């Protein structure tokens, strides 16, 4: 039984086959992200603007963390001439939470052009957030130089091999995947056989009851392949996670919140802290969406979209900052 708080947005992962009523709605306020709380192995999301109303013990749960994405430090075009300012707004939101999150997950496109000074600026801004630990995965904008030399220099977790890694926090197993390297002409995101093999081994000995959080930049589900919003070989990764009762997949890349539930797997994409992009098929291309300046924040608190392929129209839930 899930207790409701006014404006609290919950997903109750019902595993007994009963038709689910509550969708995961990780709301993006100020284009910043969502507070995700694990309680009893169930991932619940709260909009950041509402978390001050939560009782600390409820907000604390067993584990709480924040997902942000697509800060695109260095972008300065019309869609948002000051992406540092909106990232700072995200940090202010995170720091203002009643219970500080344990850490931040950044699902990539940290920078716009992989430049050292862009990485530096993001590090500086994030260092002002209350959670001191930030875990990154790269976006395609972070690996423009020599297959991600600068990114790897700063954030390489693994001692060898690729930049993928895993860690545990309060009994939850986190897996950071890289699906933005070695992209092929006409293709989608790709994990590759070496990373998949690593992941298979990584989860092999975990108990089925371990909650799993996978995070990667490009969506690990088919959001809109026409715009490259998907990963070619993510199905194989999900096969390795079949035994687990609670799997949450956190992605970015599309600059809007979207969620999908498939069996025991919940997929969610975060908004960008930099600029919005159009909803699938709603524009000629997936580029930055320009709006009058006074409307920017209202679009950073983006529309959530539920896409069920081939069966339903896109279901929209608007969540805005201003």
């Amino acid at each position, binding site marked *: 039984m899930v207790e409701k708080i006014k404006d609290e947005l919950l997903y109750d992962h019902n595993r007994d086959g009963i038709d689910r009523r509550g969708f995961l709605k990780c709301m993006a306020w100020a284009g910043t992200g969502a507070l995700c709380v694990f309680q009893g192995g169930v991932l619940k999301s709260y909009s950041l603007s509402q978390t001050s109303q939560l009782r600390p013990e409820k907000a604390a749960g067993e584990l709480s963390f924040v997902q942000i994405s697509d800060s695109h430090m260095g972008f300065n*075009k*019309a*869609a948002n001439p000051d992406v540092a300012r909106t990232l700072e707004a995200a940090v202010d939101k995170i720091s203002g939470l009643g219970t500080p999150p344990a850490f931040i997950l950044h699902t990539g496109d940290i920078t*716009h*052009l*992989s430049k050292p000074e862009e990485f530096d600026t993001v590090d500086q801004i994030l260092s002002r957030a209350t959670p001191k630990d930030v875990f990154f995965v790269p976006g*395609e*904008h972070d690996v*423009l130089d020599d297959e991600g030399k600068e990114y790897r220099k700063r954030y390489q977790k693994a001692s060898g091999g690729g930049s993928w890694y895993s860690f545990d926090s309060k009994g939850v197993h986190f897996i950071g995947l890289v699906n933005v390297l070695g*992209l*092929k*002409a*006409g*293709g*989608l995101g790709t994990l590759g056989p070496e990373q998949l093999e690593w992941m298979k081994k990584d989860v092999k000995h975990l108990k089925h009851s371990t909650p799993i959080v996978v995070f990667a930049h490009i969506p690990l589900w088919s959001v809109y392949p*026409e*715009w*490259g919003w998907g990963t070619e070989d993510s199905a194989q990764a999900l096969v390795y996670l079949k035994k687990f009762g609670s799997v949450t997949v956190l992605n970015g890349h599309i600059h809007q919140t979207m969620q999908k539930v498939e069996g025991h797997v919940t997929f969610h994409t975060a908004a960008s802290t930099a600029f919005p992009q159009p909803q699938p098929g709603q524009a*000629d*291309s*997936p*580029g*930055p969406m320009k709006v009058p300046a006074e409307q920017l924040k209202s679009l950073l608190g983006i529309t959530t979209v539920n896409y069920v392929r081939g069966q339903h129209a896109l279901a929209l839930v608007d969540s805005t900052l201003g």
Partner: protein
Amino acid sequence: MIGRRVSVAGLAVVVAIGLSLGWPCGTAKAQQEAPARVEVKIDNFRFGPGTLTVLVGTTVTWTNRDDMPHTVVSADGVFRSVVLDTDETFSFTFRNTGTFPYFCSLHPKMTGKVVVH
């Protein structure tokens, strides 16, 4: 007898005219110089034109007019640009004939090709 000679002469005239017009391709260089530069515009996550046909020796210049960075990467490893921000360019001179598919390595659904005669 006369007819046959006339027809052979006629055929010779036709062939001569054909060669002077550059038929078959590449044999009459005087009339068919490769133009100095040919442009491909990158905009709205597309290469325009998507298929570009040029003569060998042509230098093709890609110009990024989009508000997002893109790259120009040969699918067969023949050429590769650095990342192009808005208004930046990349040029490549095609010294061999053939078909050269390419794509943007940031947005791999963006594809194009250059056909070189």
